[in-house]
């Protein structure tokens, strides 16, 4: 255990937290902006007698993860954007198989190779996925280096408790920036995996883990079962940040790196007397629809801010449908890698706020 506050880079914080969480097997293939995770693991894991494999591709890495998860150990891979795209088939299998494991996705700009700038263009990739069939990848998004640590722990816990793949969705800014953080120790109870994991049929009937299912009814029941699990996860594991939401007329919705910049802009606007708040979902999938709906019922408008062309925006709108149809929903976003400044977001808050006041009173003076 290390309770010292250290200046840590986001990627190293994730890697150190994974080791502290008891990750037994790591598989990865290099891609910027997350390569430090694999580099750290290549040194630390063998030193601890744990597994590190430099996979020949992300396709291989995700399937190694499937194998490691199937024997019940804590296992992880990390990657980014165009390479996470290669993992989608494997993720569908892993979700259908109910295999616990952790995927760290440090987003870069896209589409295609894009570039290594911070981006939130893979919100859809993480939360909607590209694999086939009905499934979800439980997703948590950190907005600080400390949250890289805390949420890595949470990812391992949720994956093991519910037997499901979990994604830590960071971006190039969070992965590459340094700030003080405490690694501490894994704060969750260990979940016994021995009643299902493969360890050889010694004195018991053999077990099998497979996504194939020949009986229609059994196949249906399996999908229903994993969706019941997602409901439980939403009920028990949902985390979010509400800042100055009570009494706010305008609420900013944002996640991950951009949310902390938005928060600074909200603070600035509050000082100027604007009734503005921030809602930051930390668990992005399953999406906290009820929480958004409750907020939407009490405000005049929502301004969604993302480093993309509007992806979480659609989950925000869907959450409000039927409960807050008349409020204004504005979007301010920018794809593929140019970070926003506090001043820029502050200006958008002013614009959105002015519109709300004008809508209500016909004129605005703010």
């Amino acid at each position: 255990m290390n309770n010292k506050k250290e200046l840590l880079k986001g990627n190293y914080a994730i890697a150190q937290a994974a080791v502290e969480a008891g990750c037994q097997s790591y598989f990865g293939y290099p891609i910027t902006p997350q390569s430090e995770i694999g580099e750290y693991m290549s040194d630390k894991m063998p030193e601890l007698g744990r597994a590190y494999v430099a996979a020949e591709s992300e396709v291989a890495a995700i399937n190694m993860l499937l194998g490691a998860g199937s024997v019940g150990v804590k296992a992880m891979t990390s990657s980014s954007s165009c390479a996470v795209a290669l993992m989608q088939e494997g993720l569908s299998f892993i979700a259908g198989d109910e295999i616990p494991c952790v995927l760290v996705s440090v987003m870069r700009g896209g589409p295609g190779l894009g570039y290594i700038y911070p981006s939130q263009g893979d919100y859809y990739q993480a939360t909607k996925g590209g694999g086939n069939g009905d499934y979800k990848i439980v997703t948590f998004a950190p907005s600080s280096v400390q949250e890289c640590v805390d949420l890595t722990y949470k990812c391992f816990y949720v994956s093991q408790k519910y037997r499901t793949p979990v994604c830590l969705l960071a971006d190039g800014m969070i992965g590459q920036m340094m700030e003080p953080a405490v690694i501490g120790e894994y704060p969750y109870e260990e979940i016994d995996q021995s009643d299902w994991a493969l360890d050889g049929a010694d004195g018991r009937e053999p077990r099998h883990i497979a996504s194939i299912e020949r009986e229609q009814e059994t196949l249906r029941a399996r999908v229903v079962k994993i969706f019941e699990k997602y409901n439980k996860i939403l009920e028990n594991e949902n985390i979010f940040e509400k800042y100055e939401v009570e009494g706010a007329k305008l609420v900013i919705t944002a996640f991950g790196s951009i949310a902390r910049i938005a928060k600074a802009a909200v603070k600035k606007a509050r000082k100027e007397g604007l009734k503005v708040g921030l809602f930051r979902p930390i668990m992005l999938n399953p999406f906290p629809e009820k929480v958004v709906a409750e907020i939407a019922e009490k405000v005049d408008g929502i301004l969604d801010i993302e480093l993309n062309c509007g992806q979480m925006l659609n989950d925000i709108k869907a959450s409000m449908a039927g409960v807050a149809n008349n409020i204004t929903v504005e979007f301010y976003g920018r794809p593929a890698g140019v970070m926003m400044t506090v001043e820029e977001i502050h200006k958008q808050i002013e614009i959105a706020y002015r519109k709300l006041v004008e809508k209500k009173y016909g004129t605005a003076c703010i």
Partner: protein
Amino acid sequence: MEQLVYKKPDSIRDDYKITFCPGCDHGVAVRLVAEVLDELGVREKTIGIASVGCSVFSYDFFNVDIVEAPHGRSLAVATGVKRSKPDKVVFTYQGDGDLASIGLGETIHAMTRGEKVTAVCINNTTYGMTGGQGGPTTLLGQVTTTTPHGRKAELSGFPLKMCEILKEVDGAAYVARVTLDSPAAVMNAKKCLKKAFEAQLKGLGSGFVEILATCPTNWKMTPQESHARVRGEMSEVFRPGVYKDKVSEV
């Protein structure tokens, strides 16, 4: 006095349901793998990888823990299992389409890392489960549903020879190609399979056995004609034999 001369291996389930077509060599291959697991005394610590294709229902007959891999990814899944549980015996049971086409990368890289696993490849020169399409090992001139006029090199290249490739891969400790077309061939196949498992048990590296197998359904031949094809044109292209044997060198 009764004497038991032949019995079902313990590594085959009591309630086994063989899902293969009549006359297909898969049944013999599965039994041989099971006999080897029994004789090596490793059934209780074995984890098998089922691959996509005719062998996907391996858990219906192998009496061991099984995890299914996506198409072609068996040796990546095997890597994840073995690295996480090094004390287990890990094997894959794959078709040639799985191992030599869509999974060629995983095959070569698992073996170049010298993963302590055993790969069994059923080479029947066609995609059996999907109805007999041309694949990586389809012979020149062979008629399949996607080479209706016979495989032509200028259109779809040449059959891929896995033993010849894998013998050059340093992490592979045992590489052999066998047939099942006669009692002597079956006995030899079992000996080779055993060595391929010993390669991992002795920590020497990866073990690989390619079994030239029949697919009477898709070849539209009787089982006897199918075995004649294995002995004839298949063995001329895919030459049976031991290509590498670090097990015997020890």
